[in-house]
């Protein structure tokens, strides 16, 4: 950049401060030769240098310029708002109060700020609150009880179907046998047994009652039974059909279908003498405390047991009808008070349950757990076949017990 009449001041300044190069200094002097009217101005620069500052010249009230974090007239509004907002610490609040004491004219401002606190109008409420709520799927604190009941009912219905599929011929009919009345033995007989027995009714009716002392009284004429080598139809007990039992009030539930005749048909015919020996042997096998349905099945299993069927036990020669008679007599006494509760109480550990029963057992356990013991479901299973024998459904103090085994 060349020196000219517009910028010569900066060249003069640079020359006097000693920052102008030799080449530019030569150019500066050439410019002054061409413009002699500026020579005086150039030379006057030297006379404008300031003298050195006097170190004793000090500002007398320097401390007043420092911020002391105390309220004053210029900051009092901020302090008052801060007080109202709760932003002051104890020390600052004390400083403010001290200032207000010294300057009471700000008390009015303080009172006005206190009034700026706005309050919500609680009478204004959202009108459509119910529309905002969402249905809760799953268990909630309030609804858990109802969901548990609903789940229980569903599971119970499911269990009913499972039971039905396992016991296709379970009848729901019941028979009342009162103390003063008599009942026919076939009312508690397996259904499959009855039709076969009916074939024998015309010729082999035995009107003799079975005594309740567990000893069957079989007339001599009826002790001549056909050989067990005959077919099943000819093997069925003549004493079973129309046998009259003196019992107490019997609330007889439906009797399960049992393939009893098939088992008994394999046995040999027993003589009256043998029966006299056999019956006492059977009696101890019928545990009074054991539900009949369980006892009956256990006994039938025992009959086929190789140990039980040893010749020396004479059970191998047991006449099936007599055995049945004995069993039914026991049944008549037992059915009366064999309830679902008895089955539940008598049911011990069942070694191996079928899949359906395991499902039911799990469902019962789940209901009890999910409902936090508000709903209690108990189950009992037949120790022989593992099928559901009884269940109990309790909600609070209400309780329903049903037996599915009869």
């Amino acid at each position, binding site marked *: 950049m060349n020196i000219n009449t517009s910028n010569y001041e900066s060249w003069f300044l640079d020359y006097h401060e000693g920052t102008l190069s030799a080449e530019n200094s030569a150019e500066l002097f050439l410019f002054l030769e061409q413009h002699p009217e500026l020579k005086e101005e150039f030379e006057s620069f030297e006379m404008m240098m300031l003298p050195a500052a006097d170190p004793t010249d000090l500002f007398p009230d320097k401390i007043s310029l420092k911020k002391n974090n105390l309220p004053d007239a210029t900051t009092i509004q901020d302090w008052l708002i801060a007080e109202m907002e709760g932003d002051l610490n104890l020390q600052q609040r004390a400083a403010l109060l001290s200032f207000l004491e010294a300057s009471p004219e700000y008390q009015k401002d303080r009172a*006005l700020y206190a009034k*700026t606190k*706005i309050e*919500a109008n609680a009478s*204004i*409420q*959202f009108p*459509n609150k119910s529309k905002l*709520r969402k249905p809760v799927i799953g268990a*909630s604190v309030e609804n858990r009880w109802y969901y548990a009941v609903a789940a229980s009912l569903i599971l119970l219905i499911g269990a009913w179907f499972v039971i039905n599929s396992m016991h296709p011929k379970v009848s729901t009919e019941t028979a009342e046998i009162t103390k003063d009345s008599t009942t026919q033995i076939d009312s508690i007989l397996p259904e499959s047994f009855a039709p076969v027995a009916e074939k024998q009714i015309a010729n082999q009716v035995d009107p003799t009652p079975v005594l309740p002392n567990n000893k069957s009284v079989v007339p001599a004429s009826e002790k001549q039974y056909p050989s067990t080598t005959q077919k099943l139809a000819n093997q069925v007990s003549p004493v079973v059909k129309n046998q009259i039992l003196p019992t107490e009030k019997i609330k007889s539930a439906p009797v399960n279908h049992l393939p009893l005749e098939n088992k008994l048909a394999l046995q040999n015919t027993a003589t009256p003498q043998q029966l006299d020996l056999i019956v006492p042997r059977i009696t101890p096998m019928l545990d009074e405390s054991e539900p009949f349905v369980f006892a009956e099945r256990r006994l039938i299993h025992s009959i086929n047991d190789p140990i039980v069927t040893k010749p020396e036990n004479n059970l191998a020669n047991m006449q099936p009808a007599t055995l049945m008679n004995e069993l039914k007599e026991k049944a008549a006494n037992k059915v009366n008070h064999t309830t679902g509760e008895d089955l539940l109480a008598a049911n011990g550990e069942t070694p191996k349950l079928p899949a359906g029963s395991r499902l039911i057992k799990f469902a019962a356990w789940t209901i009890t757990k999910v409902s936090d013991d508000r709903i209690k479901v108990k189950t009992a299973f037949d120790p022989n076949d593992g099928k559901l024998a009884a269940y109990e459904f309790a909600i609070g103090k209400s309780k329903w017990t049903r037996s599915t085994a009869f």
Partner: protein
Amino acid sequence: MSPEQYNECVELHADGVYRFVLHNIRDSEQARDIVQDSFEKMWINVSNISHEKSKSYLFTTAYHTMLDKIRRGKKQGSWDEVAQSQYSHSKQYSGLKEILREALDRLPEIQRSVIMLRDYEGYSYEEIGEITRLNESQVKVYIYRARLALKEYIGKIENVI
């Protein structure tokens, strides 16, 4: 947050959010829409929102939904007209609350929002900052300005009365 907790939020916060929005936009129909929108948004994200943050989430959502509506309303030229005509200054005061309501209505939008969050809901500067997406210093400045304006308004009215 579970559905049960969501329903609990409805009980606890629906009224507060509604009041907050209503006092800002002064239109009950729009306020209802905004509250419903806010809860719908919360329901959509219910599994991602903690119960502790639910209130803050609601106010944040409602605040920004409200701002969107206000901006749209301003473009349409309707909100300002409604606001000015329905809530113009009245000289018939029945008490401090009414004076304060008038003063609040005259505050700039952002000042009104922050001071309502502060006084109605008791939020801290930091929480208000999260809701309004301002930093803490800005929140503080707006609240201070709002207090100052309210105090000036109340002082003038009291002088007149």
